[in-house]
């Protein structure tokens, strides 16, 4: 029984190491493809629309929901400790620093990760990716680099949307119980926040974009086993992207705290 468990865990470790090795090789091919002509501007803009614009309603809604819940929960706690006046600052700080970036990362990992995994997976099993290669077109450039770049560019922009909707919904929630103008709410909320507080958390989502794009494309491109394989790729793209976004968040928050104390 014990030896079976050992073999099983060894197998899992080996498979994980193999997966990471393949991901590194895959990433290297994408980096090499990125610097080769043609630069696929049309496809990059198409992907920006697909990944960025079409995620807009979802991240706006998620941001609003987070802002509302944050306002409701924080208000109850702060009232209890007689610190109701810091409620706007607490909401703005929490959203800009942590909730906005991580919620955007996870929402995009779900929507875009599944989409990329399924689309590339489907192209792989129907030999469309082989057809591209046979036509002397580099799929790492046309399919992967364009999606990864679009994710890297779209994530910070979508984070701004999440932040704005979160703060707006937080203000609406607060003002329903204690009327306060949006301007006054923002003045109080932004009182203790300077530009660097806002910059580093927003731009750390570029790393989330890199992770979501690269992992989802990787899972999609290595799809095997027909429609079932496509389903597996879509699921694993979401699961792995979300997992790595959370891990990256932990590491990046620590790094940001060290670099921008």
């Amino acid at each position, binding site marked *: 029984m014990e030896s079976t468990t050992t073999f099983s865990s060894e197998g899992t470790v080996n498979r994980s190491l193999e997966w990471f090795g393949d991901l590194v090789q895959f990433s290297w091919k994408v980096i090499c493809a990125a610097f080769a002509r*043609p630069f696929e501007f049309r496809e990059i803009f198409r992907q920006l629309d697909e990944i960025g614009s079409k995620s807009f309603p979802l991240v706006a809604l998620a941001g609003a929901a987070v802002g509302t819940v944050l306002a409701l929960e924080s208000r109850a706690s702060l009232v209890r400790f007689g610190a109701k006046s810091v409620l706007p600052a607490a909401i703005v700080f929490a959203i800009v620093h942590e909730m906005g970036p991580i919620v955007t990362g996870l929402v995009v990992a779900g929507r875009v990760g599944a989409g990329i995994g399924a689309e590339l997976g489907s192209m792989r099993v129907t*030999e*469309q990716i*082989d057809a591209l*290669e*046979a*036509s*002397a*077109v*580099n799929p790492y450039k046309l399919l992967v680099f364009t999606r990864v770049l679009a994710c890297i560019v779209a994530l910070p922009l979508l984070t701004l949307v999440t932040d704005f909707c979160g703060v707006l919904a937080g203000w609406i929630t607060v003002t329903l119980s204690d009327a306060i103008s949006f301007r006054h709410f923002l003045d109080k909320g932004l009182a203790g926040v300077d530009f660097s507080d806002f910059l580093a958390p927003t731009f750390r989502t570029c790393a989330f974009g890199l992770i979501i794009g690269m992992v989802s494309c990787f899972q999609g491109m290595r799809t095997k086993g027909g429609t079932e394989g496509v389903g597996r790729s879509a699921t694993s793209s979401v699961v792995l992207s979300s997992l790595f976004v959370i891990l990256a968040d932990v590491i990046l928050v620590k790094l940001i705290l060290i670099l921008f104390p």
Partner: protein
Amino acid sequence: MKNSIAEAGLHRSETSRAPGEPVLVLRDVEKSFGAQHVLDGINLTVARGETLAVLGRSGTGKSVLLKILIGLEHMDSGSICIQGEEIAGIALNEMNRLRIKMGFLFQNAALYDSLTVEQNVAFPLERHSKMSAFERSARVKELLSSVGLEKDFKKLPSEISGGMQKRVGLARALALQPEILLLDEPTAGLDPISSGEIDDLILKLQKEHALTSVVVTHDLQSAKTIADNVALLDKGKVVMEGSFQELAESQNDLVREFFKRDS
């Protein structure tokens, strides 16, 4: 890339070679997937303008052979010369230069499902030619007309039949006026009438464009119609190579069995 096709791809007469000259030369080609030896020392030569049909049971490595020729799979050992250029260990950009001179029809056509029929055929031209949009459109119409699909150019691949998809795949494979055409089971999954139409179409296009072709097929009737030479593969080896008639009259047990089953 665009320059290379502008210089070479759409002006075939400049690079054309003498008839009968070997265009594809395979020597001791071996390929394994794990412990499974798929190709075990394949030797074949295809001369310019010749059509070679590769026959064999399922799983004998016929499609793998085609994928090695177009560079989608890599051989483990051996040598393949395409128009005198060795492809073993060739750089990707060099392989891409050769790929532009080759057209590939996939078994299931492998059309880009988000693009219309017209966009599918235009795709190689957009990527590798310097044609204006007007010239491209005219060329696509000419290609679709040559495969009998001039009326369906706005349809998506999912909206046309399997036979029509093969025709679109063929039009796409011919878009850059290739010198070599690789066809993977062009009549597989089609009814006898559609198969006959595809065979006639391939024959017509081969004559019009003086193509060198390698056709992987199970269909003996198709091989008889379109091929100058036939090679029968079994267990990764070429069992026999010759004209269709020579194979049909062969006393080799395996060849007889293969031909008998089909008849």
